[in-house]
């Protein structure tokens, strides 16, 4: 063989992707293309790093505050109330109440509880509320949107399926969501699962509209007819052929929805309708701290800042994904 070994991407020159030995180079998956473009977006990458750190913190938080209690967020040390960050416990604290690191990294609150431990515990709550609530909203949204988009032209009596489902969606959009959540949460026992469910079933409308629009466009594509002509069932066509094609905008909006859900949970906890007090969330740490804004500013700066950073990170990752998954924007991002 006299073919010169020229590694690299000849596919871009419009030639078959061959390597030096004339062998076809394995294909680049769509996922890799998106990742390659996403990596160039520095803000989105920063967001992703923050989210990775948050995920780690949340897992560690769950581990160290509940299963292997290194940091007890509920320990009350009244002599040490409202201590600033990085202060050392006073001598009146007994050995059994001594904080793990020998100091209070984030200070203490009005009951002398370790804010660091409480923030750790809260990080898991925030993340899990965000993820679970958005999963619920995705399930409802994809189902409603998918049915409306795929079976929309079927008639149910005098209305089409599409009209029926989308008017229901319109009605759901028109509810003042936050007050609805407040009402429901006030009636239900205020535990974290109820909050997840309530946020989930009040935030699916955007997803439903996205998915419906995607499905309506995809339904008419030739490959759907081809799939039918091969004898594939509608369920298979919907879940295996249409869904992956519709996933890009859904994933983007889901990422941003997680930020919304975290904010909503924080707001609920702040108002006292959220997770019940001995259990810490960023929202109720903030709520407890608001009476001591001038005496103990760390009590609202730390949880408030944490909420801000996490919400911002989710939004940046969502924006980055949107750009990376849109081939028209991809060129700009790489140029």
């Amino acid at each position, binding site marked *: 063989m006299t073919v010169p070994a020229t590694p690299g991407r000849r596919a871009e020159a419009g030639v078959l992707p061959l390597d030096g030995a004339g062998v076809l180079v394995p294909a680049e998956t769509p996922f890799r293309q998106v990742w390659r473009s996403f990596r160039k977006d520095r803000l989105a990458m920063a967001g992703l790093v923050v989210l990775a750190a948050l995920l780690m913190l949340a897992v560690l938080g769950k581990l160290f505050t509940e299963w292997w209690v290194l940091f007890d967020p509920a320990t009350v040390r009244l002599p040490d109330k409202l201590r600033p960050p990085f202060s050392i416990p006073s001598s009146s604290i007994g050995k059994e109440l001594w904080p793990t690191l020998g100091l209070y990294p984030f200070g203490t609150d009005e009951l002398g509880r370790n804010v660091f431990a409480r923030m750790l515990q809260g990080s898991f709550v925030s993340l899990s509320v965000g993820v679970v609530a958005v999963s619920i909203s995705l399930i409802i949204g994809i189902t409603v949107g998918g049915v409306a988009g795929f079976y929309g032209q079927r008639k149910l009596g005098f209305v089409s399926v599409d009209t029926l489902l989308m008017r229901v969606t319109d009605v759901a959009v028109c509810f003042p969501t936050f007050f609805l959540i407040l009402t429901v949460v006030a009636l239900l026992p205020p535990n974290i699962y109820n909050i997840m469910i309530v946020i989930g079933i009040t935030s699916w409308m955007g997803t439903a509209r996205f998915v419906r629009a995607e499905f309506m466009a995809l339904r008419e594509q030739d490959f759907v007819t081809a799939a039918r*002509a091969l004898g594939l069932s509608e369920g298979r066509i919907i879940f295996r052929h249409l869904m992956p094609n519709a996933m890009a905008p859904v994933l983007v909006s889901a990422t941003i929805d997680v930020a919304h859900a975290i904010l909503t949970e924080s707001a609920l906890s702040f108002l006292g309708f959220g997770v019940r007090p001995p259990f810490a969330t960023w929202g109720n740490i903030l709520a407890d701290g608001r009476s001591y804004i001038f005496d103990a500013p760390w009590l609202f700066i730390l949880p408030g800042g944490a909420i801000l950073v996490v919400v911002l990170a989710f939004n940046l990752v969502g924006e980055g994904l949107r750009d990376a998954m849109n081939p028209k924007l991809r060129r700009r991002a790489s140029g």
Partner: protein
Amino acid sequence: MSGAEPQATPLLSIRGLRVDFATDAGSVPAVRGVDLDIGISETVALVGESGCGKSVTAMSVMRLLTGRISAGSIRFGNTELQSLSEPEMRRIRGAQIGMVFQEPMTSLNPVLTIGKQIEEVLTLHQRLTSSAARAHAVELLKRVGIPSAERRASQYPHELSGGMKQRVMIAMAISCRPKLLIADEPTTALDVTIQAQIMDLLGSLQQELGMAVLLITHDLGVVAHFAERVAVMYAGKIVEQGAVRDIFKRAAHPYTRALLAALPDPLRTAARLEAIPGRVPLPRMLPAGCAFCARCKHVFEPCPGVLPELFPIAPGHSAACFLHDPRRAPSNVPCQ
């Protein structure tokens, strides 16, 4: 040379097929009574210009229409396809009747590798395990002439050219060894050089698998090379049917003759190609009689008012034109 006589028990038998599409202006007929037989291992070409109902006829066989079949029967072997339930019909599609489409560029799912898409059909209809399906998919890709089939199987549709994609579509359509392959303008979207390759491939696959082919096309050159029997459609009806020799040498219907006259002939350097005057009538403004009468050179008294049936001309050759009606045809009109 088996083409002239339709076999005793046809594989596919369409009788009196009528298809209507509901529009804002009311119901519009797209197919107005089509009779067509396809024998086992026979190649039949359905020819006609755009909008004459060729594809609608094919889609009716697959029961993939957006319109409504208002009358007629479609028998496949001994089964009446219209009486089947949807799950029963799904077991016919892909397994017994394969279909190749006009647009290879958009007929493959962009987010699945081509190997996965072929495997899906195999696991569905033949209940193969996934590794067996993978091996079979690669075999199929090799059979349809795709080089480096193992690697190609893990590529996505956007990495293949149009001709390659059409080969993949053919591989999917024949994957379960169907008895009938419907090829709906399989070469229209391809380059001329690729067209010949694809038609050669279809021809050799037909020989190998012994399947019948219903070729839908408006390319008479393809028909001459590939088909045994030809049915010419005009405005939702078959106007002439016969063996390919009869159609090309002794075309009987004025429309078929006009179509053949419109073909460029490399030996005859005429300045202009023959064109058929006028245009296809709109489906909702069809005359009561022959739909071609407004454009026909030989139009005479019964044409606009009476619908011509298919009059036999020779064994296996018939045309829906009163020129061939022994009772009506005026003796002074040239039949040939």
